Each structure stands twice: as structure tokens, then as C-alpha cells.
């Protein structure tokens, strides 16, 4: 059975072409005897592998590290010192170096994750410089700026060879192993979570995914491989010195190759290294003999050219012809995904509301205050939501409704008061993923789609956290996507949806987390009255599955027909609470919110 399955897979052109490519690379490595070319190929494979390891954190996770040469050097020094002082076999030393790099990476980068964007970059750059300076400074251990020479003893166990063939084979194998690990990661639940956090951290947190844990794991995998490769490099050049292994330009190169080839893809970094390393070496060889610096100039021009003409990387340029080739070769059309069966009708509102009067409260807000600076945004707010209810939260713009959601979901902490969910105190529980894990999901008023991902991938990221397997997560995502009428758009990038589509995607992502309580922040905005009707039906369907809803909405038509109960807030205080028909007759509500000209009929 297993053999049959793998035979089936090999028939797919993606698989056999990859195998052919790998075979071709190995035969090239075996046939090249010229040491000059051997060196170029070894460096290409090595830098390709390093760029791939950077890509795990930088490309998939979106954490732009400029300090990866630090991990590379830590690995190189660790195994070299172990070898020289304790005669530890370099292969074991390599693993230990990788593990140490991963550990240091975890400890140093974890606090840096609080920094965003360019500041994270700077911190990682500083990390690398600190390691480099330490290596220069602690002469007794590291040999200072002179570095440490490794004695030459040929043999596979010593990771040293006569000629270049052995090195080529090892570096190529490293590159392939890291590529396969990346590929496996890309398709795993961890991979989806990692990519999700790259697109939007807040949104990912509300899916119940601990972004800091994902980043930590990615750092450690990434640093581990960079560390292992450091050992290989030390043996290849039989010298470790701070200025070559901790070189800032080296860190920059990892990044450049990945960007050039296609960041956040398996093939990108490899393509980048294959395109640039040989060109760089050759230009240095030929142009370098003439005017000094001409090779740098040409290299710079080449880079600039690629960035201008192929801003998405080489891979984006070749991917559509390659995909077409795959389709012709396999001779099959892309298989349509099975669409789930249609779903049930919904209970009448009147009968619902009376039944709900008796259930226990699931969310309780008790005497909550919140100020920003001197401004009191929420003032001794009290209200509760019963299990199974749909409660509308309305009030003028700036009344504190969204802040209220932020307090419940752990984005903000109340100054005083208590928030209870299912009887448990969740006041000030942070970060937001811990609230989400308890079963509270939310949407954002300013929608936060994972813009670079498709609709399916958006939903999958949330489903992956809870499902037992990736397959289970896929099945569940399909159901949710269909439920929300996004089926036709499932393979479209979230960024190209219209506002209405993005609002529905917010809902889909929230539902993917299996919430017991769902907080909706203006999901009806930007819909026309007929679309509002559809959305109302959709929310009823969600409610009929046993989800409790707290809904911020300005579209009164939706509030009137959905809500079992309405809470009105104004200047952060509750001014009224009750059934929808009573609310719209309340003089206070008309004064503060509806306006005198309001008529319910016009919606």
C-alpha cells in the first residue's frame, strides 16, 4: 500500500522532475574535477542552504533577521573548539553547534520579537556584531582576530577531503535536506501559522495562535541549520576567524538570495544563490584582473536590475510557464475540490428569545473602567451576555464599543473592574491568543485579512490550530468558506476581495476557531440592504449552531432583526438596555444615537 502510494506520487511531474533535477545536480557535483569550478559550486550550494535556513524565519515568518551570520559563526566555533580541545568528531560537533546556535537564537531573539520591522532588523544586526566582537576579544578561547586553523585529516568522518568532490556532495546534500524540511514545514499546520503571522500578527493572535511561540520555533529551526552549516564551512576552509564567519555581508547575502529568488518559497533561495554566486565569482575572476572594483559595480548593477524588473523575485517570473508545463506533462486538469453539502434552516426569533431568557450568562462585564491618557473611554460599564443570545452593542462613533471588544479579547487591559467568561475571571489575560483558546473569537472593524494569502489559507490558519490534522483542518475550512458564500473566491488572494468579501472573510476566520462566543465589529458596514439581509441570515445560521454573539453594528435594520437584546453605550457608559423595539423608542437613545429624523422602516 505504502509502496503503491509512493509510486503513484512519483508519476506526478512535480515529483519526478524534482528527482531528475536532484539527480542532475549530484552528477554535476561528481563530474566536476576542476577545483576552481568545484569551489564555485560548493559555495553556491552552501550559500543556497544558508539562504534557505534564513528563509524559514525571514521568508515564511516575516521576521527579517540581519544576524544570521551570528548563528553560522557560533556553529563554526563550537564544533572547531570541541574538535581541537576535546577531539569531538566534527559530525557530532556539528549537531552540538547547531543546537547551541538554536538555543542562543531562542534566548536572544525571543525578547527582540517585541520589536517590529526595522527595529527587529537592527537588534539582530547588533546581536551579530556582539558575537563577532566577543570572538575577537576572548583570545584565549577563540584565537582572537587570527582565528583557529583546523588540522587537515582527510576522511568522511573528519568532514575533510582531497579535492572538492566531497565538499560539493555534502553541501549539496545539506541544501536538499533543508529544502525538504522547508517543504514539509510549508505543508504542516506550523507552516500555515507561521505565514499567517507574517501577514498580520493581531489577526493571527485572535485565531488563538501564539505568535511568539511560532516565531521562537522558526528561529530555532533556522538557527540550527545555519549553525550546522557553520561547521561545514569551518572544515571546508580549514580556518575559523571572526571576520569571515561573522561577516555582516554574509548575513546580507542570505537575505539577498532569498529576495532575488522569491522570498518565502522553497525554490526561491536556491534560485537566488544559483543566479548570483557563480556570477559574482566569475566576475571577480575575470573583471577583477582589470580595474579594481569593476566586479562590484557589475554585481550591483545586476542586483538593481533584478529588483527593478522582477520585484517579486525570479520565481514569480518563471512560475506560471512552469506550472503550465506541469499540467501538460501530467495531462490532468486541476481536480475540483469537493464542495460540502448544504446546510440547515433556522429557528424563529420569537421562540428563540423566550427560550434564551433562562440560560446562564456566558460573559459578564462588571464595573469596568478604561482611560487612555486623561480620556475616560469606558466608565463603570456593566452588562452581561447569556448563553446562546445575540446581543447588539450600539452607540455613537467614539462611544467605546471597539475598546470594549479590545478589553474582552486581551488587546487592552481594564484599569479596574472584572470580565468573566463562563464564570472564569479573564480580566487582563494576555496575549490575545489565550482568550481565543478559551473560545472567544472576534472580527476587526478595520478588517485584518492575511492579505498575501488566499481565502482558503486564511481560514486554514485558524482551523489548523485546533484540528487534529491538516486534512481535518482542510475539511473544516471548506465547510466554513461555503457557509459564508466565499466558495467561488476560495483561491483568490484576500487582498483582491472587495470590502464586503473581506468582511465575510473576517467572519470565516473567526468561525475557524470554533468559538463559543463571537464578537462581531461592524460586519455589515459597506453592504447594501439586500446584502445586509443575506448577512443577517448568515449570522442566524451561525447562532443556530450554538454560538453566542455580541454584535457592534450601525445598520439598525440588522440590529432590529438579529438582536435578542440591545445594550446602548454613550461616552463609555451604558445608557440603556433592553429589547430592540423598546430601545428605538427610548428618548435617550434617540437623542444620542438615532437622531430625531430616524424611522425604522428606512433601515
Amino acid at each position: 500500500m505504502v509502496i503503491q502510494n509512493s509510486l503513484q506520487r512519483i508519476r506526478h511531474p512535480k515529483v519526478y522532475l524534482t528527482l531528475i533535477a536532484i539527480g542532475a545536480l549530484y552528477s554535476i557535483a561528481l563530474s566536476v574535477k576542476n577545483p576552481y569550478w568545484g569551489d564555485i559550486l560548493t559555495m553556491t550550494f552552501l550559500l543556497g542552504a544558508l539562504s534557505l535556513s534564513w528563509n524559514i524565519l525571514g521568508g515564511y515568518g516575516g521576521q527579517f533577521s540581519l544576524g544570521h551570520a551570528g548563528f553560522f559563526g557560533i556553529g563554526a566555533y563550537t564544533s572547531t573548539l570541541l574538535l581541537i580541545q576535546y577531539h569531538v568528531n566534527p559530525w557530532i560537533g556539528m549537531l552540538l553547534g547547531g543546537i547551541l546556535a538554536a538555543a542562543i537564537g531562542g534566548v536572544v531573539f525571543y525578547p527582540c520579537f517585541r520589536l517590529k520591522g526595522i527595529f527587529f532588523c537592527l537588534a539582530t544586526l547588533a546581536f551579530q556584531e556582539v558575537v563577532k566582537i566577543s570572538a575577537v576579544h576572548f583570545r584565549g578561547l577563540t584565537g582572537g582576530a587570527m582565528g583557529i586553523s583546523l588540522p587537515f585529516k582527510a576522511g568522511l568522518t573528519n568532514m575533510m577531503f582531497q579535492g572538492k568532490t566531497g565538499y560539493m556532495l555534502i553541501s549539496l546534500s545539506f541544501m536538499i535536506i533543508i529544502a525538504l524540511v522547508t517543504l514539509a514545514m510549508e505543508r504542516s499546520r506550523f507552516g500555515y501559522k507561521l505565514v499567517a503571522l507574517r501577514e498580520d500578527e493581531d489577526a493571527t493572535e485572535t485565531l488563538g495562535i501564539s505568535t511568539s511561540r511560532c516565531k521562537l520555533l522558526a528561529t530555532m529551526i533556522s538557527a540550527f541549520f545555519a549553525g550546522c552549516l557553520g561547521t561545514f564551512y569551518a572544515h571546508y576552509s580549514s580556518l575559523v576567524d571572526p571576520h569571515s564567519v561573522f561577516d555582516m555581508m554574509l548575513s546580507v547575502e542570505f537575505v539577498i538570495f532569498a529576495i532575488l529568488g522569491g522570498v518565502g518559497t522553497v525554490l526561491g533561495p536556491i534560485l537566488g544563490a544559483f543566479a548570483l554566486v557563480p556570477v559574482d565569482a566569475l566576475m571577480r575572476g575575470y573583471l577583477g584582473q582589470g580595474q579594481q572594483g569593476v566586479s562590484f559595480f557589475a554585481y550591483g548593477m545586476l542586483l538593481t536590475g533584478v529588483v527593478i524588473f522582477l520585484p517579486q523575485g525570479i520565481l514569480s517570473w518563471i512560475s506560471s510557464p512552469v506550472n503550465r508545463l506541469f499540467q501538460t506533462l501530467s495531462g490532468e486538469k486541476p481536480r475540483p475540490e469537493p464542495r460540502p453539502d448544504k446546510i440547515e434552516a433556522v429557528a424563529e426569533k420569537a421562540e428563540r428569545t423566550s427560550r434564551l431568557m433562562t440560560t446562564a450568562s456566558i460573559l459578564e462585564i462588571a464595573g469596568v473602567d478604561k482611560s487612555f491618557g486623561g480620556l475616560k473611554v469606558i466608565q463603570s460599564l456593566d452588562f452581561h451576555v447569556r448563553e446562546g443570545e445575540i446581543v447588539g452593542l450600539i452607540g455613537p462613533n467614539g462611544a467605546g464599543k471597539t475598546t470594549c471588544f479590545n478589553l474582552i479579547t486581551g488587546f487592552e487591559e481594564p484599569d479596574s473592574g472584572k470580565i468573566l467568561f463562563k464564570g472564569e475571571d479573564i480580566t487582563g489575560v494576555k496575549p490575545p491568543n489565550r482568550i481565543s483558546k478559551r473560545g472567544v473569537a472576534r472580527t476587526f472593524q478595520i478588517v485584518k485579512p492575511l492579505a498575501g494569502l488566499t481565502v482558503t489559507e486564511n481560514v486554514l490558519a485558524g482551523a489548523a490550530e485546533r484540528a487534529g490534522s491538516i486534512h481535518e483542518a482542510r475539511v473544516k475550512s471548506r465547510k466554513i468558506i461555503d457557509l459564508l458564500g466565499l466558495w467561488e473566491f476560495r483561491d483568490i488572494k484576500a487582498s483582491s476581495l472587495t470590502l464586503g468579501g473581506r468582511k465575510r472573510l473576517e467572519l470565516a476566520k473567526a468561525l475557524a476557531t470554533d468559538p463559543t462566543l463571537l464578537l462581531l465589529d461592524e460586519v455589515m458596514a459597506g453592504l447594501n440592504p439586500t446584502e445586509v439581509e443575506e448577512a443577517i441570515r448568515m449570522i442566524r445560521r451561525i447562532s443556530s449552531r450554538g454560538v453566542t454573539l455580541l454584535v457592534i453594528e450601525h445598520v439598525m435594520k440588522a440590529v432590529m432583526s438579529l438582536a435578542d437584546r440591545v445594550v446602548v453605550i454613550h461616552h463609555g457608559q451604558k445608557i440603556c438596555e433592553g429589547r430592540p423595539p423598546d430601545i428605538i423608542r427610548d428618548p435617550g437613545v434617540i437623542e444620542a444615537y438615532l437622531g430625531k429624523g430616524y424611522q425604522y422602516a428606512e433601515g
Partner: protein
Amino acid sequence: MLKVEAIDIYYGDLHAVKGVSFQVEKDQIVSLVGSNGAGKTTTLNAISGLHRLRSGSIHFGEINISRRGSHQIVDLGIIQVPEGRMLFPEMTVMENLEMGCYSLRARRNFQDSLQRVIGLFPILAERKQQLAGTLSGGEQQMLAIGRGLMSQPTVLMLDEPSLGLAPFVVQEIIEVIKTIRQRGTSVLLVEQNVFHALSISDRACILENGEIVMEGKGEDLLKNEKVRKAYLGL
């Protein structure tokens, strides 16, 4: 005055706007109505010069503006107030208004424009020094419209001005749109609050999947059975 003729717009292979034609005359409010994804915002963006036309033309008076850059179109007096306001959140209210008065032609009339805008939205004068990002939703929308009016446009295009606003603020905005027209600026309106939009429009076009399927006087469309069913949910 503004004449859109048989324009086609594509996103890659997707035919988003299909042969749409309509006109905005002086002192008119014209509405584009339709579901999400019908091509309303795309049409506004095309008029502003943010999308290239595959075919068709857009004329402003005698001038063909279909190949002009956005800043040139702004200079001619066609201003778009985008969906979602797109203010400069880290700038003060005053600075945002100044940004709306950027072109040389507009700058000469700065004081005059400012007085008019403040006349329309007195709250903006009170909030002059406040950062735009800290305003409430309704105030932000007023600022966005105010910024659009600072260059004294001939045509003001409003993309969903009532988005995310409390009911009484929506009523205020609708009143403001009427006042803007009275003061001599034509308005091209995209609005999901179809009831309000149609009731103040001189003309309206209903867009479905990138095509105009119906057009007429606002009041007439409001009474039309199809429109009531498809867009008013009645």
C-alpha cells in the same frame, strides 16, 4: 460636464467594468448603486486616473482626461474622497485640510476655502489641533469630505461616505451632500445606504457585474419594484 463613455477596465483577466457610460451635469447629484464587486469604486478610481482604461474615454468638459495623471485630474477640479476616509492620521485636522489645498490654484483660495469648510463642519474648527487619527468615525468622515472640498472642486466623488457611522451622523452627512450641491459642486456618489442615496440623487445608475443595468431619476428608481427587491431589501 463629466462624461464617461463606454469604458472597459480589467484586473488582469477579470473584466471589472464593461462598457459603462454616464454623465454628471452641473449641480447634479449622481449615484452609482450596486452590490459589492459591481465595479463602482473601480469606476471612480478610473475617473481619478488610478486605473488605466482598456477602451472608452472620460471627458471633463472638452478635455479628454482618460490618459491624464491623477494629480492633473485633481488640478482640473475632480476630487475623490476615498472609501475608508484615508486621512493622514498622524497629522492634525488643520494639516489634513491644508493637504487638501495642495495645488497652486487651490492655495490662492486657501482662506476662502477654509471658511467654507468650517461653515459646513463647525466641529472641525474646534478640533483644529487634534490629530486626525484620534477623531471619532463621524468626525473623520467630515474631515475627509472637508479635505476634498478645500480645493473647491467642480466634481466631488464620494465613496461610501456613510460607512460605519451612527444613524444620526448618516443623516447629517446626507444633509451636507445636499448643501455641497447647492453651493455649486456636482457630486458623484457611491453609497450602500441605497435609500438615502436615491432619495437625494438627480440621476442614478444601477451597476451589476460591471454593467449598467438600469438608470433614471433617483425617485423613480426608488419606486422601481426590481430595485426595491434587489437593493433595498424590501
